[in-house]
């Protein structure tokens, strides 16, 4: 089972690849939209890449609830069970 920090680090790599954000800036309390400048289309790309990477499903309805990096990490942890 991946640790919370491992999930955050892998997610940071995805955000870097999709949106060009420095992976070190992808911290738990950062907002995707307000702090990292990841817009809704980039967020769709991040979610699809995360689904593949972590073997989880993140439905469209859920995406809007993932406001911060911490929200996304927590969702992935729960979904991985």
């Amino acid at each position, binding site marked *: 089972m991946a640790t919370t920090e491992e999930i955050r680090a892998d997610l940071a790599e995805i955000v870097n*690849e*999709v949106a060009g954000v420095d992976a070190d800036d992808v911290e738990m309390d950062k907002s995707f939209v307000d702090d990292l400048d990841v*817009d*809704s*289309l980039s967020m*769709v*790309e991040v*979610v*699809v890449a995360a689904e593949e990477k972590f073997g989880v499903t993140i439905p*469209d309805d859920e*995406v809007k609830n993932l406001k911060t990096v911490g929200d996304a990490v927590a969702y992935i942890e729960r979904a991985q069970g």
Partner: protein
Amino acid sequence: MTRIGAVTGGPHAAILGLGAYRPSRIVPNADVIEAINSSDEWIQQRSGIKQRRWATPEETVQMMSVAASRQALERAGLEAAQVDCVLVATVSHLLQTPAVATAIAHELGTDQAAAFDISAACAGFCHGVALAADMVRAGSARHVLVIGVERLTDITDLADRGTAFIFADGAGAMVVGPSDEPGIGPVVWGSDGEQFDLIRQREDWRDVVGTEDSPGSGVMPHLVMQGNPVFRWASFQMAKVAQQALDRAGVSIDDLDLFVPHQANMRIIDAMARSMKLPPHVRIARDIAEQGNTSAASIPLALDRMYAEGDARSGDTALLVAFGAGLAYAAQVVTVP
């Protein structure tokens, strides 16, 4: 039992000529932002569109189609009378019947060519290329003219933030005919009617007209689209379909010269290219920046720009992938004429 005679066509089919018609009105973002309370920056960031082409009243579906077709025929070195079938992919010919293809075939001067329209929205042009290649190989036609044409501005709500800045007008055409070598690869196509509502005409014409008891809206049933789910489907599912078209044609991604996806949105084009891991030498069509999204017309228009700007050369191997309302999709590998 009486034996029915059969015919066969040539062993292979190829694209013999390409034509395009871009409407005369150039509409920059500055001219569409007021109605949707937006900005040039937002539109470019969201779609990569800087300007689009909109048709004037004189630039009808038929007029644009004939212009693009004449260029395609000339480049193919063919006369209209040598065309046996005219296929028109469109969703914006607003006279429901007869098919606009018949009027186009007549105006071009074909000898009563078979002519009909294809309703597969933004995927229509690649459906047409697939049908044309099969007709040529099967012997039901020798030369087929495939046209993609739209006047989407007629069915776009210019106050809708989700679509007003995207949709545009134009026409493209290709002549498909017999060849010594395969110039059109196997089609990979399909539909996902479960997502019928993602992109659609807002309401049925009967609801526009209404009844005596229940008056209709009386308003043009514009196109409506759910942007984010469409983005997700197009960027990732269509990248897989594009790869399947390469696999079925036996073409390695390393041997590909051009990637010509439906010009839906620059963000989808970029996401597809990333998802497919396109090598850097593959030149990617980006006509949408100057032309907007012209649905069925976008692929021939995009290839025509690559041709004009020296990015596409005769003999290049191009991957076409088209997708849209339905959801319908089609992809094939072709040789540039």
